[in-house]
């Protein structure tokens, strides 16, 4: 197939790329880590058990709206009749948020689609239409997933508050789980607020900042966070998995929670 860099008008160079650095390392890392996360998250989401270790609720299951174990449902159980794991009810939102996220798109287009695998490295596919048609056209609804992600962030924050209790739900206590949940929710918020859609909504869409000083200020803050959006995407991915793992291990009795006070 002679198109792209091997097309008839291009400089005749056999190699697909002349890059000599380890350009394949970042996409490979992304591939391995994302795949591992997907496997772990899928297993945990379908498991439907060991997600609550009083007072901690796993972020994969929060809010727990299905037929959840006692103490896990702080917002009722409207989907009690749902036969599968309660995680599947709500994971769709953070999943959709991340799948349509401008940073994750870059990461998985490169690592999974190889489109392109790295800059100035020829991609293997011969046809490319980008995000112009279904299903990738759906990426344009990212802002709706962001609205949902804000709600999820609020729920997770509420869970952190609840985690300042002991197993008997008495206030004023804290354990390692609380700390991990707190760290996680900070990263979740940093990731959510640094979102490109958020940046657009708070002020990016304007043409006259001079007429909207408050929104300009907000936009400036979000813009500053936005430069590290990719970093927060990774940190929050790790932190959410770590919190779930910690709660899983306590819930199934493998370890004991470390109580600080």
């Amino acid at each position, binding site marked *: 197939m002679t*198109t*792209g*860099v091997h*097309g008839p*008008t*291009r*400089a*005749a*160079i056999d*190699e697909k*790329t*002349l*890059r*000599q*650095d380890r350009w394949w390392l970042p996409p490979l890392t992304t591939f391995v880590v994302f795949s591992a996360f997907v496997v772990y998250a899928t297993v945990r989401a379908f498991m439907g058990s060991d997600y609550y270790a009083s007072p901690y609720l796993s972020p994969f299951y929060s809010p727990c709206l299905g037929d959840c174990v006692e103490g896990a449902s702080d917002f009722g159980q409207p989907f009690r009749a749902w036969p599968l794991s309660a995680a599947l009810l709500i994971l769709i939102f953070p999943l959709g948020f991340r799948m349509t996220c*401008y940073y994750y*798109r*870059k990461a998985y*287009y*490169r690592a999974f689609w190889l*489109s*392109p695998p790295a*800059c*100035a490295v*020829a*991609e293997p*596919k*011969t*046809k*490319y*239409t*980008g*995000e*112009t048609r279904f299903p*990738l*056209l759906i990426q*344009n*609804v*990212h*802002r709706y997933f962001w609205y949902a992600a804000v709600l999820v962030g609020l729920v997770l924050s509420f869970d952190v508050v609840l985690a300042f209790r002991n197993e008997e739900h008495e206030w004023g206590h804290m354990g390692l789980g609380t700390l991990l949940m707190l760290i996680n929710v900070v990263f979740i918020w940093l990731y959510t607020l640094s979102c*490109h*859609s958020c*940046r*657009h909504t708070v002020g*990016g*869409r*304007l*043409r*006259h*900042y*001079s*007429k*909207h000083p408050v929104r*300009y200020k907000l936009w400036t803050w979000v813009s500053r966070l*936005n*430069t590290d959006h990719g970093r927060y995407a990774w940190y929050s991915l790790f932190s959410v998995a770590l919190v779930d793992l910690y709660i899983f291990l306590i819930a199934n009795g493998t370890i004991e929670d470390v109580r600080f006070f």
Partner: protein
Amino acid sequence: MGYQLKMRVWRGDESGGDLGDYTVEVSEGEVVLDALHRVQATQAGDLAIRWNCKAGKCGSCSAEINGRPRLLCMSRLSDFEEDETITVTPLRTFPVIRDLVTDVSFNYEKARELPSFAPPPRDADNKRRMAQVDVERGQEFRKCIECFLCQNVCHVVRDHEENKPAFSGPRFFLRYAELDMHPLDTHDRRELAQGAAGLGMCNITKCCTEVCPEGIKITDNAIIPMKERVVDRKYDPLVWLGNKIGLRTKDNDGRTEV
């Protein structure tokens, strides 16, 4: 101080070519373009190189060094090991003319497809007023030196020749964003950006930003905001509904779609 630099330079034209080996004396503080000029002056008088200011300001000497799109004049030899062979090829997205020179007319054609700035009349005192905060976003984009490295690295056209008619490329998304954010422009270019310019083809893999010698945040500050603006115009049902019932930002008033 000085040492012998080994280079491989692509020589040829549309009908074919290959990498030629050169060894050239270089000294401290020099850039790749200096080395090539010395090859030109002492070994290959007809080596075709496009260059101009040699200061990273005009964006003429775009090429690929060890496979990476860069400006020859801004690539310092001290970034490489002394015993490393430096491979220089022409841009691989555009038709080659000769040696390191390519036909970049694609970019000039795309430039002509873009409706120009359309200001309202001046103020009563014959001046125009814009606030500094309102012009700053556009000023970042106007730092562009049109080296076309972003156009060259973009896989949409680099790897798919057939996409060229439908895709303007990062340099012109930058221009769309600049005009769409211009506090005075009276055109609404969102529909055009998505349609004629092919903004939807971009999958924001950010190589344009990685290669920009001016450090313009093309993806984060121009393309993604432009995509979001297109969503406002075309894909967001709430914005559509808001427009219908008059619940909307007045900031875009006075623009007509082109």
